[in-house]
């Protein structure tokens, strides 16, 4: 029992998020800072919290803007807070917000903070577009040039191709392989079929649609307002008209001939922000909050990116459960990040495989059988969307809310991340 054994018990008290919207759609005019600030202001109001109470802030962001590299500090400088709240932005790719929450947990457990806000945001509509290295070098040299002749000589060296802007790719710097290519390779190596991937994607949409319609999913959403005040009240990637046929008709993206990974069974590029309120158990009681859940344990692992890049959860989950001191069968609800259906199914395959457990974990028993009735019960990132920096907070919040609705004792979060990393966290109810 990490919380109790290693310090103060940490409660998750409240949270909310922006609607998650496909990049270039409803939230395209906003920055990641705007999204994080909106989620945070709404969190204050929903929790009826006084900004003076907050000791520290932690946010995740993956593609940071050079104009505001520490997003968390932009949030903690919101006028609703004193200007004296330290804040840090972390980047663990898709597990960034999870990491922000974990760090907030640590500071509270250590007694360094009593109340913290953690979360994350991403705007993939607002990504930095770079100049080529050659052009950038020329600009730097131009600024140092002393004579007109030097300047002209430098300008004369510029070639048209130097002016082509460079957009950051979602690729591993160590291998050059993109996320999608990794997922494609995992599908092939693990024998994950196109049909199985499409079925998972279909279920993700159907469950997200149900959650949207019955209000369980929208309950965590703080409506945003576009130009002229037009409200955006729900995630816009959830499709009511998705069918198995439509998914089957899509062309594979990363291997056009033999591939199985399509736009339909992958998570889309998304804009969104999310924030949760964490505090020590004593602070929650003192301030009169009834916690949604407590953080029982978490774990982070990494594998060689040249191997199966997105298998992190298969390592992090058993470690988090071990630290929580509970067996797999006691987990009543699971939120698993859906980067790609192929990645989810590969990890599930590993969870259920004795052979995998023996080879990779040195254990004689598999991690556990997956009961799909308790996994991603309101859909996942494929349908809801995946703003890299925010997803972890969305998963945590969705899980905590649903644990309360179902009165589940233990819940599990699992996230794969770039760089071969995995993150897992166990939440518990009182």
């Amino acid at each position, binding site marked *: 029992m990490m919380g109790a054994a290693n310090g103060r018990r940490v409660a998750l008290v409240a949270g909310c998020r922006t609607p998650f919207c496909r990049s270039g759609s409803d939230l395209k005019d906003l920055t990641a800072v705007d999204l994080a600030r909106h989620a945070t*202001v709404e969190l204050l109001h929903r929790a009826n919290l006084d900004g003076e109470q907050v000791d520290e802030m932690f946010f995740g962001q993956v593609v940071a803007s050079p104009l505001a590299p520490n997003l968390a500090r932009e949030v903690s400088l919101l006028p609703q807070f004193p200007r004296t709240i330290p804040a840090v932005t972390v980047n663990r790719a898709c597990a960034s917000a999870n990491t922000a929450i974990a760090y907030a947990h640590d500071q509270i457990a250590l007694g360094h903070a009593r109340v913290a806000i953690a979360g994350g945001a991403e705007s993939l509509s607002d990504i930095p577009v770079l100049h080529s290295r050659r052009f950038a070098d020329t600009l730097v040299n131009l600024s140092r040039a002393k004579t007109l002749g030097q300047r002209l000589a430098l300008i004369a060296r510029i070639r048209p191709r130097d002016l082509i802007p460079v957009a950051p790719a979602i690729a591993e710097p160590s291998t050059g392989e993109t996320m999608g290519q990794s997922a494609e390779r995992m599908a092939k190596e693990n024998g994950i079929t196109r049909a199985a991937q499409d079925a998972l994607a279909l279920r993700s949409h159907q469950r997200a649609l149900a959650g949207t319609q019955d209000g369980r999913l929208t309950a965590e959403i*703080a*409506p945003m*307002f576009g130009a002229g005040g037009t*409200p955006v009240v729900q995630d816009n990637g959830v499709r009511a008209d998705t069918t198995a046929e439509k998914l089957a008709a899509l062309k594979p993206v990363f291997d056009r001939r033999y591939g199985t990974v399509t736009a339909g069974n992958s998570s889309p590029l998304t804009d969104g922000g999310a924030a949760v309120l964490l505090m020590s158990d004593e602070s929650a009681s003192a301030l009169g909050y009834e916690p949604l859940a407590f953080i029982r344990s978490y774990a982070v692992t990494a594998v060689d990116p040249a191997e199966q890049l997105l298998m992190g959860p298969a390592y992090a989950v058993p470690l988090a459960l071990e630290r929580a001191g509970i067996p797999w069968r006691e987990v009543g609800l699971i939120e698993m990040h859906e980067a790609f259906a192929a990645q989810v199914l590969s990890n599930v395959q590993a969870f259920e495989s004795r052979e995998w457990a023996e080879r990779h974990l040195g254990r004689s028993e598999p991690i556990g059988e997956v009961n799909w009735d308790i996994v991603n019960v309101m859909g996942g990132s494929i349908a809801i969307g995946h703003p890299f920096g925010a997803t972890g907070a969305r998963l945590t919040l969705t899980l905590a809310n649903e644990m309360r609705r179902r009165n589940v004792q233990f819940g599990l979060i699992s996230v794969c991340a770039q760089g071969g990393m995995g993150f897992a966290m166990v939440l518990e109810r009182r």
Partner: protein
Amino acid sequence: MPAFTVETKDGLALARLNLPGESINKITRGVRDELDALLTAWASDSGVRAIVLLSGKPDTFIAGADIDEFVRLSSVAEARELVRRGQALIGRIAALGKPVVAAIHGACLGGGLEAALACSYRVATDHPKTVLGLPEVQLGIFPAAGGCQRLPRLIGARAALDMILTGKTLPASRAQKIGVVDEVVHPAILETVALGAAARMADGWRPRRPAAGRGITGLLLDRTPLGRRVVFALARRGVTRQTRGHYPAPLAALRAVAHGLAYGVEAGLEMEAALFAELAVGEVSRNLVRMFFATTALKKDPGVAGQAPPPRPVRNVAIVGAGFMGAAIGGVAVAQAGVDVRFRDTDIARVGQGLAAARKILDDRLKRRRITRFEHRRLAALLSGGTGFDGFGRADLVIEAVFEDLQVKHEVFRAVEAAVREDCILASNTSTIPIARVAEATQRPERVIGMHFFSPVERMPLLEVIVADRTAPETTVTAVAFGRRMGKTVIVVQDRPGFWVNRILAPYLNEAGRLLEEGLRIEELDAMMVKFGFPVGPLTLLDEVGLDVAAKSAGILHQAFGDRMAPAKGVHRLTQSGRLGRKNGRGFYEYRGGKRRRADRSVYELLGVAPRAAPAPEEALARMVYAMLNEAALALEEGVVRSARDGDIGAVFGIGYPAFRGGPLRYMDHLGPTKVVEELQRLEGAWGKRFQPAPMLRRLADTGGRFYSDA
């Protein structure tokens, strides 16, 4: 204790003005005498090569002349003498023969700026508190201590007239740009920079200033007699259009400037003195000064009698109803008071529209450079909203701005009470419903109060705070203090139908309606009141307020006060015909694309009259004017407002009652209660009982009393 302390070092005298017993510096008789003596000493002291003049007050350089002194002037001759002496003193600064440097931090206004203009060099700080201007016209006078001579010579006639005729104040950066100050520096180095300039000037250095009126247009308009004639003609036309002849000060200033430029400084100074003396003892200036004193006093008035409890801090405000009024109240609360504002409305689309409308108030301020991009971003983040009562637990003050229906308001107040802390203050922005009735739905009527804003909230300066019988003093004090933080002039009024503003407005508007029914032309009716001094006439006002809103208010007052408040009979036909005023483009006037066009002829058909010119315009004017005067007396006697002062401020700031008349109660004092009673009795005989003079007026007439005890 002397006002000036002087340190002399290395031949430089540092004269620091710190008027004892005052929070600001002003030019009093004592200051003048001391400065006079100092100038004499400096002139003959060979140990002093140059002087730096600065202030010992934190936020003021010199805020202006001593108004109290000027109010006591009783004759033209006395006023002229005062001005001549002031001119002579300030002239001595310019003629000292040694450099004098003004080191300006904080407000540098009126006589303070005129003194600075006489200095050889001006350094100002870039602090937001540092503002420069000549606001004299706002008090019905104009800069007569050489300001009308030195400023146009320094910065050109056009720029000088822009400052003198409007009375506007400039931040230091702007003042530097147009040439009023020579340098703008950080406050920490003001003294050093000023001393440096003084030392250099003592050694013979002179600042190089571009000729007044830069560029080709400047050359043509500011630096040729013909160009200046064009400038003056245009300015005169502009002033006449704006003041409609009611405010003589700007025209006098214009004459003083023109005369000085044509015939030289000394002739200009004589003209300044002559014109100033006439204005200073005139009724217009007297009324404007009284209004200034009244608003200044009101700003310090906590809103309750006796020992006032301190106002509760208000950091978070929640607003129920994100419609037109609610959104504007929220926008102004953020823009002015910088508080967190949470909107709640039943429909998320309305919340969005409300947020957009509130944000637009911030956008406008950004556009007009009242706030920076960074302030805009910070303030915009204070606006949020939703369909639930989220965030109401944070609220220190809730303002309700929902539909004017008691049952709706009761539902809102019950829901709000369940969501807020126990110490939260609940305000209703009603204009027609008694606050005591609104409070019936709550468990804590002592926390309930009325905050009656006027539309458009971002432009209308008045707020009526309505106190019901059970409202606690702490609630009143908090609402008044917060209204002030919103930049409003706040009057506390009793919970009587129509409160103050709508109460005195109603008989006036009713009378205008009757005149219309008698066949008077729409434009003529409006023009009559504009000529009297109102910014707009009664029918234009009705169009702006909304005919439906006005009809509702009129009905309530009719019910409460009977025949005296009976609306004109035919006017309801206009509302029935779908005329709501400007908001739906149809009222007494036609509107197209948001712009007012001509009067709508079909109004006459609806009323069954043939329009004609007023057979007796004087009588029509008297009926409208006296209807309001009489009602003001009645309402004051009922105790609707706490004092004549509050009543007049409410009329001037809430209705646009001509400020040069000092407000309706001051105007009756001016006319004399006896005369007012006689006129009302005459009108009563001619037009009916509604003109029966108020008992208080009769009493004042009988005893020779006045509404005001001063002058």
